[in-house]
C-alpha cells in the first residue's frame, strides 16, 4: 500500500496541470465565495429627471448612486439610460407624481432599490417628514422572473462550453491519434485545416444557440425584444473568442484529459465571475476587475440587453468592441500556435523538448 501511495505522489508531482487544478480551483472558489458571491447590492446607479429632479435627488440616500440629475429630462431620457445600462433606476419627477423606473434585468439591484424606497417612506412617516411618494414601475422584466435573467446568460454559457471544451477536444483528438501529422503532409494550407476544424463547431454552436433561445421563449416565456442581427453579431464575436480559447487549449494539450483540465480552468471562473449568477456590481472591488477580463461578462451584457431590453446596437458598442478586440487577440494567438503544428517546416528544430518528441515519434 505504501508503495502505491509513494508512486501516486510521484506521478502527481510530475502532473503539474492536475496539481494546478487541485490548488488553483479551491483558491478560486474561496475567493469567489468569499468576495464575489454576494447578492446584496450596495450601489444602485440612478438618474433623476424632471422639474423636481434636484429636490427628489436630495431625498435619495444609499444605495442610490446618483449618476445624473437633469431637470430638463423626461421619461424617455430615464428609460434610455436604463436601456443602455447607464442606470438601474430612473426617477421621473412630474408636477403631480413621481415614478421610479427600474431595470427588471437587474434583479438584486431592483430589490435593493424597492426596499430602500419602502424604508425611506416608512422612516418619513415615522418622523412626520414630508417625503414625496414615489411609485415604482419595473421595466423589461415586470415580475422579476429569474428564468428571464438566466436564459440569456445560459446562451453564453453554452457557446462557451462548445467553443472552448468541445473544440479543444476535437483538435486534441487529431494530435492524440496522429492524424494531425497526416494533415500536415496533405496538400492543405494551414488555413484550410484551421477553418475546416473551427467552422463545424461554429455552426453547431449557432444551432444550439438558436435552440436554447427558442426553448427559452416557448417554455419560459422569455421575450426577445431586440434586434436579432445585433444579438447574432454579439454571439458571433463571443463565439470567435471561445473558439480561439478552445484552439489555444488544444495547442498546449497532448491528450484529451489535459484539454478538459485546462478548459475547466477557463470555463469555471467565467461561470462564477461574469455576472451570470452573482451581480458584478456587488462583488468586492478586488475581484470585480476579474469580471472585466472575462468575455462571458460582455456577452451577457449583450444578450440580456438585446433580448430583454431591446438595447440598440449603438448602446452596445462597448461590449461589442471589447469582444471584437478579444476575438482578434485570442483567435490570432490560437491560429498562430495551431499553424505552427501544421506547418512546422517554417521553424528549425532547436529545442531539446522538440528533439525528444521527434526522436520518440
Amino acid at each position: 500500500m505504501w508503495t502505491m501511495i509513494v508512486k501516486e505522489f510521484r506521478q502527481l508531482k510530475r502532473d503539474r496541470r492536475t496539481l494546478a487544478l487541485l490548488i488553483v480551483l479551491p483558491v478560486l472558489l474561496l475567493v469567489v465565495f468569499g468576495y464575489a458571491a454576494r447578492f446584496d447590492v450596495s450601489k444602485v446607479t440612478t438618474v433623476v429627471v424632471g422639474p423636481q429632479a434636484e429636490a427628489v435627488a436630495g431625498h435619495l440616500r444609499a444605495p442610490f448612486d446618483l449618476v445624473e440629475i437633469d431637470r430638463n429630462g423626461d421619461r424617455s431620457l430615464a428609460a434610455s439610460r436604463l436601456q443602455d445600462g447607464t442606470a438601474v433606476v430612473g426617477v421621473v419627477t412630474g408636477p403631480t407624481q413621481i415614478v421610479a423606473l427600474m431595470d427588471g434585468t437587474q434583479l438584486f439591484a431592483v430589490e435593493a432599490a424597492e426596499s430602500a424606497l419602502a424604508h425611506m417612506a416608512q422612516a418619513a412617516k415615522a418622523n412626520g417628514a414630508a417625503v414625496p411618494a414615489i411609485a415604482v414601475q419595473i421595466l423589461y422584466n415586470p415580475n422579476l422572473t429569474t428564468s428571464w435573467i438566466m436564459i440569456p446568460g445560459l446562451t453564453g454559457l453554452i457557446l462557451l462550453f462548445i467553443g472552448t471544451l468541445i473544440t479543444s477536444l476535437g483538435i486534441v483528438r487529431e494530435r492524440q491519434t496522429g492524424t494531425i501529422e497526416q494533415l500536415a503532409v496533405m496538400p492543405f494550407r494551414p488555413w484550410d485545416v484551421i477553418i475546416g476544424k473551427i467552422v463545424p463547431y461554429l455552426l453547431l454552436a449557432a444551432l444550439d444557440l438558436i435552440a436554447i433561445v427558442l426553448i427559452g421563449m416557448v417554455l419560459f416565456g422569455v421575450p426577445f425584444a431586440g434586434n436579432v442581427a445585433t444579438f447574432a453579431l454579439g454571439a458571433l464575436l463571443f463565439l470567435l473568442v471561445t473558439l480561439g480559447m478552445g484552439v489555444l487549449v488544444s495547442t498546449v494539450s497532448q491528450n484529451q484529459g489535459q484539454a478538459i483540465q485546462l478548459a475547466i480552468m477557463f470555463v469555471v471562473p467565467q461561470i462564477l465571475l461574469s455576472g451570470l449568477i452573482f451581480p458584478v456590481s456587488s462583488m468586492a472591488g478586488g475581484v470585480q476587475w476579474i469580471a472585466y477580463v472575462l468575455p462571458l461578462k460582455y456577452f451577457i451584457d449583450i444578450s440580456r440587453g438585446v433580448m430583454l431590453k431591446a438595447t440598440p446596437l449603438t448602446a452596445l458598442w462597448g461590449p461589442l468592441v471589447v469582444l471584437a478586440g478579444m476575438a482578434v487577440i485570442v483567435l490570432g494567438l490560437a491560429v498562430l500556435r495551431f499553424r505552427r503544428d501544421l506547418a512546422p517546416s517554417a521553424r528549425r528544430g532547436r529545442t531539446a523538448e522538440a528533439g525528444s518528441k521527434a526522436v520518440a515519434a
Partner: protein
Amino acid sequence: MIALAETRNVTMRFGSFAAVDSVDLSVGVGEVVGLLGANGAGKTTVIRLLLGLVRPSQGEVSLFGAPPSMATRRRIGYVPQTLGLYDDLTVQENWTFTASAFDSTRIALPPSISDARDRLVGTLPLGLQRRVAFAVAFSHQPELLVLDEPTSGVGPLSRARLWQDIRDSAEHGTGVLVTTHNMEEAEQCDRLAVMAGGHVVAEGTVAEVIGDRHVVEARCDSWQDAFSVLDAEGLIVQVQGDVLRVPASPQHVEEVLTRHHLRADVATVPANLEEAFVSIVSAGALR
C-alpha cells in the same frame, strides 16, 4: 537514376543533440529503400525532414528536385506509424476524405479493402487497418511512398500482403522509402541505409551491407552449456535450432569452449543481415 527524394549532408539538431547527423540518402524511381535502425537511430526524423515536417539545421532536402512544398505534397503518399486514419470514420469515408484532399475522387476503393468499406476503421483488425492506410496513401497514385514501420504489430500473412502491395507499387515506378527494424522486411528492399546514433553507418544492397562479415557456427552436444559460457564471456550469441552463431574469431570461440571442457565443431560462415546489422550498429554506437 533520378532521385525522387534526396537529403544532402543533412543534420538536424535539437539544442546540442544531433538527432540526424550529416545524412546523405536518396530514393529513385521504382526503388524500395529501407531505412534500418534501432529505436532512436534517427529514422523517423529523416522521414519528417523529407516530408517537410521539420526543417534541417544544416544541409539540403529535396523532393522531386525541389525543396518540400505544397506542390511536392501532392506527389507523396505517407503512412505514419500511427496510420493517420480516422478510427471513427468508415473505410469509405477515410478514402473519400483523402481522395478529396488530393483531388483524386474519381479513383474507386480498391477491391482488396472494398469488403470493409462500411466498417469503422477502429473496429478493423490491425493488419486490415494497415492495408487500408496503405491503400488510402496510394489513392492519389503518388510517385513517392513514405512508410514508417508499415508492418509493425501485424501478423505474417498481413505483412506478406503489405509487402506484395509495396513491391507492386515499386514495379509501377513508385519510389518507396520504408523504415523498419525487421530484418526479413529489410531483405525485401532494393537498397538499405543503416542508421545508428543519427548517422548512416552503412548502405547498399543487402549483400553490400553484409559485406564480408562472417560469424562462427558452433555445434556441440549441449548447446545450452555452450551458450552460457559464451554469453558469460560477453559474446553476442544467437541460437538457430541447436546451432550457435557468434560474431567472433573461431579461435576465440574454441578457446572459450575448451576452457570449459566443452567440445564443439566450429566453422566460419557468412553472416546474415541481422548479424551484420548488430555488428554495424555496435560499431556505430562506439563512434
